[in-house]
C-alpha cells in the first residue's frame, strides 16, 4: 500500500509541471496526458481498495491541497476521482472488477432527486447529473443522488450515458465539465451502494483539501507578486502601504484558521467511529468560507491587475470561488442544520417529490 506520505511526495514532484501548465489547463482544459500522468503516479486511484494507493480516509486531502496550490483544476479532478473510488470500494468486489484499477472513475452528484426501481438484479436509473469533472476522460461514473430509499450511488460506464459539454467563464474552467442525462439505464445491483447516513461527514469534507490548497496557492502568488509591485498612482512600492500589509495579515489569518479547522476535521473523521456530521458540516462550511474570504480580499487588493486573466491570483480566486460554493459545503444548509441540532429541532422531511421516471 502506498502511504499518504508517498502520494503527497508524488504530488509535490508533479506540482512544478502542473503549475507551469496551469494557465493553459485553465484556458484549454485538462489534457489527457496530464490525467495519465496523475494516474501513473497513483493519484487517481486513492481509496481503491485493490490498488497500491489504498488508504485511510484523509489521504486525498493532503494530496489535493498540494496540487491545488499549483492548479485547482487538477486538484478538483483528483478530489472527484477519490470520492468515486471510495464508493466503488464500498460497492464491493464486483464493482472493483468492473471498474479496473487503472480506469478513471469520477463522482457525479445529482442536483435533484433521482428515480430508481428494481427489476430483478438490475436497478433502472433515471436522472440528471450536472457539472461532472473530467467526464469525457472518465471510464466510469459514480452517479450519486437522493432516492426514495435514501442516498445511493451507481457505478456506470461513461459510454452508457449521454454527456453534454458545459461552458462557463467562472472557475475550474479546465475541468472538462459535462452533464449527464440518464433515462432508464440498467445498472447491476452489484454496482450500486446504499450510502449510510454516517457517510455525510466524509462527503462534506471531501473538497476541503482542494479549497485550502487553492487559497494557499493564491496567497503565495500574491506575496511573490506584491513584493515587486509598484503602485500605478505615485509609483511607490505597494508592499509599503499599511493597508496592504494589514489585509495580507487578515487573509493569512483566515487561511491559517481554515487550515487548523480542516486538519481537525480530517483527524476527527479518521479517528472517530461516529463523527458528528452536523458539526463537521458546520466546520467545513466555515473553513471553505474563510478560504474564499482570504483569496477574495487578496485579489481585490490588486486593483486592475487583479482582473487580468494571466494573473495566477485571479485564477486561484476564480477556482476557490467555484470550489468553496460546492453544494457539499453550502453555508446555509450546514449552519441551519447545526442550529437545529443545538436547539433540539427535528430535521425537516428528507426527500422532496421524486423526479418523474
Amino acid at each position: 500500500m502506498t502511504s499518504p506520505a508517498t502520494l503527497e511526495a508524488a504530488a509535490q514532484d508533479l506540482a512544478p509541471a502542473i503549475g507551469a501548465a496551469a494557465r493553459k489547463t485553465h484556458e484549454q482544459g485538462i489534457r489527457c496526458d496530464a490525467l495519465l500522468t496523475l494516474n501513473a503516479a497513483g493519484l487517481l486511484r486513492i481509496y481503491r481498495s485493490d490498488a497500491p494507493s489504498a488508504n485511510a480516509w484523509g489521504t486525498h486531502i493532503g494530496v489535493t491541497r498540494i496540487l491545488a496550490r499549483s492548479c485547482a483544476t487538477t486538484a478538483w479532478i483528483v478530489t472527484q476521482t477519490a470520492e468515486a473510488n471510495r464508493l466503488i470500494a464500498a460497492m464491493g468486489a464486483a464493482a472493483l472488477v468492473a471498474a479496473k484499477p487503472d480506469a478513471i472513475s469520477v463522482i457525479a452528484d445529482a442536483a435533484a432527486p433521482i428515480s430508481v426501481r428494481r427489476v430483478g438484479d438490475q436497478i433502472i436509473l433515471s436522472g440528471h447529473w450536472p457539472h461532472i469533472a473530467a467526464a469525457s476522460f472518465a471510464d466510469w461514473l459514480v452517479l450519486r443522488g437522493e432516492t426514495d430509499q435514501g442516498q445511493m450511488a451507481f457505478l456506470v460506464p461513461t459510454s452508457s450515458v449521454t454527456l453534454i459539454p458545459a461552458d462557463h467563464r467562472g472557475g475550474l474552467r479546465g475541468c472538462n465539465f459535462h452533464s449527464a442525462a440518464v433515462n432508464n439505464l440498467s445498472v447491476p445491483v452489484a454496482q450500486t451502494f446504499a450510502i449510510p447516513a454516517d457517510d455525510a461527514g466524509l462527503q462534506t469534507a471531501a473538497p476541503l483539501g482542494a479549497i485550502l490548497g487553492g487559497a494557499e496557492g493564491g496567497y503565495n502568488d500574491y506575496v511573490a507578486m506584491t513584493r515587486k509591485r509598484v503602485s500605478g498612482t505615485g509609483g511607490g512600492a505597494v508592499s509599503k502601504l499599511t493597508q496592504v500589509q494589514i489585509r495580507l495579515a487578515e487573509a493569512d489569518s483566515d487561511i491559517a484558521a481554515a487550515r487548523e479547522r480542516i486538519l481537525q476535521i480530517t483527524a476527527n473523521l479518521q479517528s472517530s467511529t461516529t463523527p458528528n456530521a452536523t458539526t463537521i458540516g458546520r466546520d467545513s462550511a466555515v473553513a471553505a468560507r474563510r478560504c474564499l474570504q482570504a483569496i477574495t480580499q487578496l485579489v481585490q487588493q490588486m486593483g486592475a491587475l487583479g482582473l487580468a486573466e494571466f494573473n495566477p491570483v485571479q485564477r486561484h480566486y476564480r477556482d476557490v470561488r467555484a470550489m468553496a460554493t460546492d453544494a457539499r459545503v453550502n453555508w446555509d444548509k450546514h449552519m441551519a442544520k447545526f442550529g437545529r441540532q443545538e436547539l433540539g429541532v427535528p430535521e425537516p422531511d428528507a426527500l422532496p417529490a421524486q423526479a418523474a421516471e
Partner: protein
Amino acid sequence: MTVIRTLERNAHATISEADLIRRAEDLRAFVAQYAARTEQDRMVHTDVMAELFRAGLVRYFQPKRFGGFEMEWGAQIHLGRVLAKSCASTAWIACVIGSHAAYVARMSARAQDEVWGANRDVLISTGSVPRGVRIVRTQGGFVVNGKWAFCSGVDHAQWALTRGTPEGEEAGGQYYFLYPREEFTIEDDWFVSGLSGSGSKTVVAKDVFVPDHRAMRLTELMSPNPPGGQVNAGYVYNYNFRPFAGTALLGPILGAAEAATEEYAASLSDAAKDDASVQLRLAESAAEVGAATLIVESLIARLRRFAGNNLDIPKADRIALIRDRAFCARLCLRSVERLVSGLDSSSILSEAPIERHYRDLCAMVQQIGVNWDRNMTNTSKAMFGMKTDVPFLNVS
C-alpha cells in the same frame, strides 16, 4: 448640409433626459441578447454599437451645433444604470466613454469641428495610464509616442484622447492629446475576468503629430472656463470639471448591482423564497442597493446644484463627493457578494446571468475613481488638512 443630416440633427434636437432614458429602456432587450457575445468577443458587438449611435445614446454631452443634446451632468449616469441591467460593458461604453465628449467639448472650437464636423456618431476613447511615453514639443504641436493601457471602447472609437507630460514640462504638467483613429494602432491586451466587453485595450501612438489646437493642458481642460466654454454654453463645458470626473462610473455600477439583485430574486424556487436565510440575505442586499441609489441621486443633485449655480464647492462637500462615490461602489459590490455567496457552484458552472453581473461589478469597482483605498485614505487626509493625491481635495 444634406437633407439627411438636417433630419438627423432635428430628430435629436429636442430630446430630453427622459427621452434619452426611454430610448435606453427600449434598447435593453436588444443589448441583453448580445451581452454574452460582447463578453466573449471582448468588445461591444458592432450591431449594438450601431444601435447606440442610432438612438443617440452617446450624444448627451455632444454640443447641440453638432447634433448633440448638451444635457446636464448625471443624464449619462441614469443612462448607464438602465443599460447595465442588460450589459455592464455596453453601459460602460455608453455612459463612461460617452462622457468623454465633454472633454472634447471643452477643447478648442477647431478640435470640436474636426471631431464632429463631418460625423455626428463619434466615440472618443481616453487613455490615462501611459506606458513608455515620450512626447516632444515641435513647431505647431507635439510629436507623441507611447502606449496607453485601459482605453475602453477603443475598437469603436473614432478618436483617442491620451494623457502625458511633454519633455521639458514640470512634473505634473500633463496634457491631453487628441488624434484620430487612422493615426494610432491598437494592442489587443484586454484579457480580463470582468467587464471584458469594454474592450479596454492599449492605444499605441508612433510619431503621431498632434497640432496645438488638439492638445491641451490637463489643468486648463479641467479648470473653469476652458476654451470650449466660449462656444458651448452649458456648465458641463464651463464649470470646474474635477468634481465630475469619476462619477460616471456609478451608473453602470449601480445598474449591475440592481440587475444582480433582480436575477437573484427571480432565480429563487418557492422553497428558497420561504427560507429565512434567503429572505434576510436578499433584504440586506436590496437595502444596500437602495442606499446606493439614494447616494447616487444625492451626488447628482449636489453636482447639479453647485455646477448649475456656478458655486465653488466647499472642502467638506468635496470630501463628501469623493467619499460617497467610493462608498456607493462598495455598497453595490457588497450587496452582490452577499447574494452570490448564497448560491452554490452550479450558478458559476451553468453561467447564471448573475455571475456576469458580479464579474463586471468586481472589475468596475477597481477603477481609480471609485477605488476604496485611494479615495478613502485621501478623504481622511483631506479632513486632517494633509496633501492628498486628489487635486480636487487640496484646498483649504
